[in-house]
């Protein structure tokens, strides 16, 4: 129960952060990616602000033997740079550049009720299902 409350609260903070920062707006994200145009560095400030919190926080958190409400930390252990990582990230970047939407802002922007956001999320989930099906 407590775990669910933490998820809900963290999700809400995350969604609020994405909205306040303007990252829910694909036009603003494209403004960052368009380095040859009228460049808008805001996305870099958002990532920097998040890292400012997460880098020291994880350092402290991983000194604990376990999370507060679970038995262990679920952290990826893989170290190799493989073709899946590189190819998948490259494809993701193309989709991100075409639309200005990535998964967090897309899910959050559903709150706008705009039809294209729903179309994007439906296609994104179809893409995820396709990966699950062939892998």
């Amino acid at each position, binding site marked *: 129960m407590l775990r669910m409350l933490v998820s809900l609260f963290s999700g*809400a903070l995350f969604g609020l952060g994405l909205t306040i920062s303007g990252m829910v707006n694909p036009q603003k994200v494209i403004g960052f990616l368009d380095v040859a145009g009228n460049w808008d560095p805001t996305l870099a400030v958002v990532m920097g602000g998040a890292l400012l919190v997460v880098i020291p926080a994880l350092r402290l958190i991983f000194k604990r033997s376990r999370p507060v409400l679970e038995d262990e930390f679920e952290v990826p252990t893989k170290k190799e740079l493989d073709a899946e990582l590189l190819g998948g990230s490259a494809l993701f970047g193309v989709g991100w550049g075409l639309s200005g939407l990535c998964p967090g802002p897309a899910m959050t922007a559903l709150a706008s009720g705009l039809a294209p956001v729903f179309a994007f999320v439906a296609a994104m989930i179809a893409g995820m299902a396709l990966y699950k099906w062939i892998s």
Partner: protein
Amino acid sequence: MENFTPVSGLIGGLLIGLASALMMLFNGQIAGISGIVGSLLARKASEVGWRAVFVVGLLLGAFAYTLATGGAMPVSIQVSLPVIVVAGLLVGFGTRLGSGCTSGHGISGVARFSRRSIVATLVFMATAIITVFVTHHVL
């Protein structure tokens, strides 16, 4: 650079960071949205529960913003429907194949100084910048 909004960007970034830290401290989970949404396709209730709740939280955060400011969500999409659908497919397939997106790799992974996440972030930033350059300045 008249579109640059560093103050709201910094406040939003700090909130996103705080949310990511809380998920790890209490639940031992990375706040990576592609992983969270992708795992909703699982059948096991124990895997789906907290992730579905997190997504509900994302929407509540957005609604809290619109309630507090009295305005609409600042979302504007200027891309045609076919492009949106192709982009969505690429983002969904690519993030699962590449094990993460802007949140899981770009924030939590980079913050752990994970080599995989740092490389993934550089790769998707690069292909996104190239894509925008081609669609906005070449085509």
